[in-house]
């Protein structure tokens, strides 16, 4: 509940840009995770000054704040799990300056990735991290999550592009972190610490990003395999060759079937496809293509398709990006996609063992169908769970399976999140994997946010299970 006086003060300076309407507080209680919790109020600030005023009020009245971009987080990061205020950045969405000569762009947090790239492309530049959700993800959300995507193998993640941030701290100060220079060796890298902090350390109100020139040319190769292990082996072999393509993506049969159903795309329906994006000059691409074909052939590829046609490449890339939401179309009406163990990162050489291991675990659990895909070239896998969320047994099965899968990831030397972050759904496994880091992060969190108002009850502050505040109509007994 928001205290009456605080609400009155909010309304005084935000007017219509604060809402406590039941429909609104209900909707802002969702993101793309399995969790849901109603907010108490939604605010739509237009400037850092307004953000500061709101934060000061929340800090004074000890009311939680959850910042929100597009609400596409997959592990509950944007769900106001303790209620309170949700702060939407939909109205702070201006590209403030494009400074090509300084290799940087300055934006407000609500700017959407694809919109930013459309603008930068006009100058022959781009902001490389390309999450599958790039059509919706806000830059604020991407920085807060350290999002990345297919091109991370060659270009890195969002954090690698953050030069400077303006941040409203939980205690209400407006702080400026980082620099507008390419190099910066000035002590603690505060901007990089905020990147990936999932809205728990402060609110980002302005972002300076480094930008890159667009590649000259690209070609895409689809290599099809009837043996998942050989497909994963191909990925390791490409990297070890050595070859660093812009992206190396992996999709198993379940994912291929779903995206073919959803979009009618001409992907081969086989046990696994490896999609490789090559870039450079025409000669570079020609040479790399020969190497890729040789490696795929040696590993028993049953079909190899290549395209440099813009329409075909876009169709394939868009289809790959739509794998996650397309999963709902795999067993339409019977099984539904739920975001569990959605993300993990492994040493590249362990990808074959992980993929094999996940499917072995899946076979033990009758209520779950598992799809595996990901940016396998940089060791980042995603798994998608299909279950009937109305069936409590399915949830129990899924919960066990998540535990077994993350045990395997940790055993193989991997980590529980490559890009989708921790939030609620992955927090217990982070504690298992990185207890030392979590303890130190908790100290940092408490130092910066003494009243625990910034996106509380998540990440380092989460020590409960994963099947909490579910958004599905199911009774799991206990607290649910």
């Amino acid at each position, binding site marked *: 509940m928001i205290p009456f006086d605080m609400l009155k003060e909010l309304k005084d300076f935000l007017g219509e840009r604060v809402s406590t309407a039941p*429909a609104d507080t*209900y*909707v802002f209680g*969702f993101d793309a995770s399995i969790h849901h919790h109603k907010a108490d109020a939604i605010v739509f600030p237009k400037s850092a000054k307004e953000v500061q005023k709101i934060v000061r009020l929340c800090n004074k009245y000890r009311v939680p704040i959850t910042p929100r971009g597009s609400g596409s987080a997959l592990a509950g990061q944007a769900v106001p799990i303790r209620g309170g205020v949700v702060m939407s950045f939909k109205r702070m969405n201006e590209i403030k300056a494009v400074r090509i000569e300084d290799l940087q762009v300055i934006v407000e947090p609500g700017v959407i990735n694809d919109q930013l790239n459309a603008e930068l492309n006009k100058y022959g530049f781009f902001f490389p991290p390309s999450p599958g959700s790039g059509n919706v993800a806000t830059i604020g959300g991407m920085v807060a999550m350290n999002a990345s995507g297919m091109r991370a193998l060659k270009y890195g993640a969002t954090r690698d592009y953050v030069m400077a941030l303006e941040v409203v701290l939980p205690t209400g100060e407006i702080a400026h972190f980082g620099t507008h220079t390419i190099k910066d060796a000035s002590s603690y890298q505060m901007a990089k610490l905020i990147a990936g902090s999932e809205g728990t350390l402060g609110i980002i109100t302005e972002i300076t990003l480094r930008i890159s020139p667009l590649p000259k040319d690209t070609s895409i190769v689809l290599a099809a395999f009837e043996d998942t292990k050989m497909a994963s082996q191909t990925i390791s072999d490409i990297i070890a060759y050595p070859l660093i393509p812009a992206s190396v993506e992996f999709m198993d049969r379940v994912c291929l079937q779903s995206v073919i159903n959803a979009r009618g795309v001409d992907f081969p329906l086989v046990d696994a496809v490896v999609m490789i994006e090559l870039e450079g000059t025409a000669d570079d691409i020609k040479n790399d293509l020969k190497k890729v074909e040789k490696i795929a052939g040696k590993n028993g590829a049953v079909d190899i398709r290549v395209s440099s046609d813009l329409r075909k490449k876009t169709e394939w890339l868009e289809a790959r990006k739509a794998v996650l*939401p397309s999963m*709902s179309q795999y067993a339409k*009406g019977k099984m539904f996609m739920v975001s569990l163990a959605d993300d993990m990162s492994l040493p590249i050489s362990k990808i074959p063992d992980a993929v094999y291991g996940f499917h072995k675990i899946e076979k033990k659990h009758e209520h779950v169908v598992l799809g595996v895909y990901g940016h396998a070239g940089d060791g980042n896998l995603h798994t998608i769970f299909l279950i009937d*969320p109305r069936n409590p047994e399915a949830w129990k099965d899924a919960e066990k399976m998540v535990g077994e899968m993350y045990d395997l990831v940790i055993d193989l030397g991997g980590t529980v999140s490559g890009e989708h972050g921790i939030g609620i759904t992955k927090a217990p496994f982070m504690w298992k994997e990185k207890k030392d880091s979590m303890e130190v992060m908790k100290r940092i969190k408490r130092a910066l946010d003494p009243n625990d108002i910034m996106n509380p009850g998540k990440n380092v502050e989460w020590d409960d299970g994963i099947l909490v505040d579910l958004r599905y109509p199911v009774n799991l007994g206990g607290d649910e």
Partner: protein
Amino acid sequence: MLEEYVSEMMQCTSCSFCTVTCPVMNVLLTDASSPRGRVQIAYGLYTGELEPDKSVAKRLYECTTCGMCDSTCPSGVHIVDVIKAARKVVYPQLAVEKQKNFAGNISEKGHTYGEEKEPIWAFTGFAPKEKAEVAYFMGCKVSAETGHAQGIAAVNLLKYLEENFTTLDEVCCGAPLVNVGAPEEKIRAQMEKNLGEIRKRGVKKVLFSCPSCYYMFAKVYPNHTDVSDIEFQHIVEYLDEKGLKPEDFEAGTEPITYHDPCHLGRVFGVYDAPRNLIKSIPNADYKEMEHNRESSLCCGAGGSLALYEPSLTKKMADRRIAEAGERTIVSACPNCIGNFSKHTKAISIEELLWDMLRR
């Protein structure tokens, strides 16, 4: 009401892809008024976590049923159907007076406007024939939004082509009833009257000027009854098939652009026919708007939004008008034309063609 849509609602992965393409969301800038938000609200009504109240009705009615979300959704959720089903839940208690009056007029008088006494066909001056294979269904919006002009032009074009056709003693197709969430029996009553009239005259093919009427006959009526004995078509498709030749027209037009009506484009995929017709006018001064065909922006008048929130309709129209610039907007939907005409120059494609014909 919503039980039927549980699977649809659970199929939503909450990816938010539909939120960035929704023209309403892009004006109001709140997730609560996005397609995903509306599906979630419907879901909350279904589970009982959300009680129907004013805020719920507001978010459900702030939608033009433009279908942009349906064509964006990678999970194949039939979002517009879910929204329409949820509107049925809120309609009895929470529909506003304007919506109720509108629905009342349809049920009592057969059409959407209040006091008019004459049957719709009378405005065209062309009385129904006893028998004909082809019929022209004018639709009450053609009358109300274009001052009958679109219907008169359509009838003139059909006469010019020497078609053996009839008008109909029609009643409102029921689209506004579906839009506001009125009870099924009211919609069925309209349907039965119209289908009775069509069959009585031995009609095998019905032509429409209004994409919403076309939608009702071709997509909604078949959910209630078998209509496989009758073919439905928008008049632009029909005219395109007949082929109007450049020599039929005077050359040159004022600067024009074409606005794709949401239902005609996104539901029926009719994009080429109107463009072919316009291009058959020699030296037409024609230019596409930035958003055209599949990505066309909604004019703001669909889904009977103007009954609920006219200011939102206006804001959406403004965005589209800015794209058209100084050009006259040509369209194939009376609702779009009526909405644009309040703020800029707009004309139906039937009127444009009829005006430009050498006759």
